């Protein structure tokens, strides 16, 4: 990354005795679609509000486009925000809402008209310019909020769970539109969400947060394939965890003693030595294969406890002797055959699929 557009360094935020953010460091590049992902209360919205200038960090530094933002009020920042509640001004119509901030830019009348017009176009609200704010549906209000922020041509657009109030179909449609809009406008988006699928769909990079800390900052692929710890692994998608004791390492392959399950092997993502520690062997459901006879690939034996046919794929819950949690397995439906509940099966996975997590 060349010079980042947003530089967040050691930012903390306390509300009285409660610490919402503990030392956050993030660099966000120009034109990046960046997501802050985490459960509610993890500090992601607080961080977004610090970027907007609505909250001031307790300590730490925030630079946007090389400028120190300390003491710079929200009205003077090159950021605009789409609020979770949309915050559409109820006493103004669609056009007045979208044009609200333009008055402060002191543009010519023609330019103001032009900008409102193209923003209305962009969010597909043509013909609704005079409509009153409370005559709009949830999706339309979301579009007004987006247009109202984009019309300001911010360097950074901040989005606080903008899609969470929409129904599933509309949400998926808006995700694609947002992504396309972000690519064509080239504006940096910082997007807050608690929905891992949404974050994966939209983002170039994701900062996964918990309890005011960043657990992992990575690409969607990195978060899924190389989760840094158990919490990330379980938040992003589904992960099977087999408790084991780590043994000797050879390169980044570690031999594991899984008790009753015997000897297993796993890969470590980082150079941290795990030798002798209690760890987990983490396996994604789609990397595990089950069958009556896997030959040399068989690593464990189990029994099908549940089988769900989903058309394009089949999910199994496989009980394994000596393992408290049954394994979740997702197999592509290649042959149309489904293993019966109660069937004794062998379980296997490719060598590099098992990840060692502490």
């Amino acid at each position, binding site marked *: 990354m060349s010079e980042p557009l947003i530089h967040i360094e050691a930012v903390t935020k306390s509300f009285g005795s409660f610490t919402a953010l503990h030392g956050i460091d993030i660099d966000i590049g120009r034109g990046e679609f960046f997501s802050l992902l985490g459960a509610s209360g993890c500090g992601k919205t607080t961080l977004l509000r610090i970027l*907007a*200038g*609505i909250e001031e960090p307790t300590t730490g530094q925030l630079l946007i486009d090389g400028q120190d933002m300390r003491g710079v*009020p*929200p*009205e003077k920042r090159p*950021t*605009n*925000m789409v*609020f*979770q*509640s949309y*915050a*559409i*001004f*109820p*006493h103004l119509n669609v056009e007045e809402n979208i044009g*609200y*901030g333009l*008055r*402060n*830019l002191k543009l010519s009348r023609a330019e103001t008209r032009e900008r409102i017009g193209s923003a209305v176009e962009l969010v597909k609200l043509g013909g609704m310019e005079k409509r009153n*704010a*409370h005559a*709009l549906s949830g999706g339309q*209000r979301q579009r007004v909020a987006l247009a*109202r*922020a984009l019309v*300001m041509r911010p360097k950074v657009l901040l989005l606080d769970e903008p899609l969470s109030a929409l129904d599933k179909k509309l949400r998926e449609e808006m995700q694609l539109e947002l992504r396309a809009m972000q690519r064509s406008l080239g504006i940096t988006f910082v997007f807050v969400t608690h929905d891992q699928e949404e974050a994966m769909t939209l983002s170039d990079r994701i900062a996964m947060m918990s309890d005011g800390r960043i657990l992992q900052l990575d690409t969607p692929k990195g978060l899924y394939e190389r989760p840094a710890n158990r919490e990330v692994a379980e938040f992003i998608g589904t992960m099977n965890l087999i408790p084991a004791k780590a043994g000797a390492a050879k390169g980044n392959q570690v031999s594991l003693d899984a008790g009753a399950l015997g000897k297993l092997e796993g890969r470590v993502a980082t150079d941290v030595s795990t030798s002798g520690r209690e760890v987990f062997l983490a396996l994604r459901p789609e990397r595990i294969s089950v069958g009556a006879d896997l030959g040399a690939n068989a690593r464990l034996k189990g029994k099908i406890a549940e089988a769900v046919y989903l058309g394009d794929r089949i999910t199994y819950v496989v009980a394994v002797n000596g393992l408290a949690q049954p394994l979740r397995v997702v197999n592509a439906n290649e042959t149309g055959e489904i293993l019966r509940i109660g069937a004794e099966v062998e379980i296997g996975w490719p060598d590099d699929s098992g990840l060692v997590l502490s």
Partner: protein
Amino acid sequence: MMKGWGLTTYAVLFIAFVYGPVLILPLFSFNDSTFATFPLAGFTTRHYVEMWGQGPMIGALVNSLKIGLGVTLLTTAIAIPAAISITRFRFPGKPAILSMLMLPLVVPSIVLAVALLVIILKFLNIPLSLWTVAAGHVLIALPFCTSVLMSRLEGFDRSLEEASRDLGSPPLQTFWRVTFPLALPGIISSLLLGFIISFDEFVIAFFLTGTDNTLPVYLYSQLRFPNRLPGALALGSLILVVSTVLVIVSEIIRKRGVQSDNPGDF
């Protein structure tokens, strides 16, 4: 059905009990007699005509209108920033400040009146006048106006103001472009409430006034003269009509405001 019938009777009796005595006022104001006694002597509107000839009473009415107007403007002007600070900001001692602000609601007005009288005469050495009455009225109207405004300000999404700031409007501009128009129904309610509180206040006006009278104080002083009573009844009836209309209008504005401006009920 019995239950519905019982409740209806209860409601009718309740309303009769509350408003019946008030209706005596217009009834006798149209009665063709100097004395407010039954049986009624016949219909007349002459009291309404003669009323305007009672110079001191009209003077007192004008005093009350002037004080009411001044008091409500000043009180609302003080109450707006108070309500904004209490609903929008975190600051130390907020609960204590709020309680102090609401205190005049529970202190008997006779106690306030005596205390103010002592302060004004003994400590401040200000002669009693309509100004001192107005000052007292601001004190008692403040908690009412503040709570009306607070409920209005709490009723709308705080992120509206944040959005305005985010879109480039500094705090003062945000107040005029967002907070004020959204709080307007509350501000109108506050203005009407402040006026009515001052207009019919007796105890503080009685203690703190100088040579000029407010209307309630004047009416009280005239009770000894039976021949002035019909004029007072006529004026009282007019005030009743005007204040009823004002309260209804303010309720309509307030209700409509809540319905249309609250983002929660889109």
